[in-house]
């Protein structure tokens, strides 16, 4: 199965440390050139460099609906193509520096990477993208975070939940 990567590096430098993460609370445009695709057997939206240090959340993903919010119906006619879920660390329970993700660069360091190393999520959107491609040739990705809030979250940052290194729409063809 061949793969066409049809965009789009949000941050081509990638994630080096938690402090360099960009924060998105709004939409991300992805230039998806439909003219270059004749057909595909599978389409995914990939989220790379996903921060999971904070709260758990559902990321509702909308295409071409930058005004989507928590009340927007989860239906394709509103651009909803699916959700991913993050099992969040829940904040830091260590001393200063405990949750700083430090890249290992010593040759004989065989420890595993820091548990908070940014993660990866993939959402399969094959049928949804096929349908939307009938109407659009460019796409904007909007992620709406939904948090199961509880009494102990008052001290946590619930406004800057979405942190990605890169978002891509990837199609596959046989």
């Amino acid at each position, binding site marked *: 199965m061949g793969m066409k990567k049809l965009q789009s590096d949000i941050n081509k430098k990638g994630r080096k440390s938690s402090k360099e993460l960009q924060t998105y609370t709004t939409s991300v445009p992805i230039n998806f050139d439909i003219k270059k695709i004749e057909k595909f057997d599978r389409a995914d939206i990939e989220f790379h460099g996903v921060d999971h240090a904070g709260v*758990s959340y559902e990321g509702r993903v909308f295409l071409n609906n930058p005004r989507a919010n928590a009340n927007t119906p989860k239906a394709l006619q509103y651009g909803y193509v699916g959700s991913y879920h993050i099992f969040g*660390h829940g904040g830091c*329970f260590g001393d200063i520096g405990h949750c700083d993700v430090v890249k290992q660069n010593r040759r004989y360091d065989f420890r595993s990477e820091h548990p908070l190393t940014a993660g*990866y999520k993939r959402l399969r959107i094959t049928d949804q993208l096929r349908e939307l491609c009938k109407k659009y040739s460019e796409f904007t990705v909007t992620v709406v975070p939904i948090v199961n809030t*509880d009494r102990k979250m008052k001290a946590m940052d619930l406004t800057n939940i979405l942190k990605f290194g890169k978002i891509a729409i990837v199609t596959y063809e046989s």
Partner: protein
Amino acid sequence: MNLRKNVQNLTNEELKNLRLAFDKLMKISDNRGFNYIAGFHGVPQFKCWHHWRRRGEQRLLPLFLPWHRAYLYWLEQHLQDQVPEVTLPWWDWSSGISRIEGIPKAFSDKKDQSAKPNPLYKSHIFVPTATPPIDEDTFRNPGSPSELPTKNDVDAVIKNKNFSDFEDDLEEIHDNIHGWVGGSMGRVAVAAFDPIFWAHHCMIDRVWRIWQMDRADLGFPHDLLDEVLEPFPFKVRDVLEVKGLGYEYASTSNEVIVSG
């Protein structure tokens, strides 16, 4: 061979023994106790594997499933030290009854059959080395039962042909359930202190087991079989075959749905 069962199918005696084993383990404060073992996952030891990470210069390692299989085994052995016939049950969050009542009554009832506090309802987290120190009970904040995954969702995961897709999709459902239960379960750092964690992961392990049944080589990337599952005395290859760990899952799981 120990047989793990659907929590809905436990007899009264089996449920009583399960609660007794958890209760006894929760009263042990040394390294044989529940508090210590729950501390492997998040605070204070942070040994759990989620997502794909590297070790040294290697490629990304998908150790989520084998690590948690070893973890379940470890707790089950310690439960059996207290009550030998006990096995961990699974919570099928995709079942009809779960989509009505949510968390199984075995875990959500505040009292047991004898009107004593139900040890499966919550545990006490005691981690004095955390910053700030943790000395509190677990709690939950579950969503609507109708939002739980369906059998079709699970079937779609099992239909994946390659391990990478299967692992990604199963971990996605796993993440969903942690967030759905909420409270302590919604935080990696303290999730394993909630007794429902173990029934949830038993279901995850069962789905992996079902997926493995159609694969003679058990479906794990061959070049990763010697990866170590710290802090357990296992490599990946040691946990691929559940019978080698002395357990199997009951093949059927009849359930009684009480409609409202």
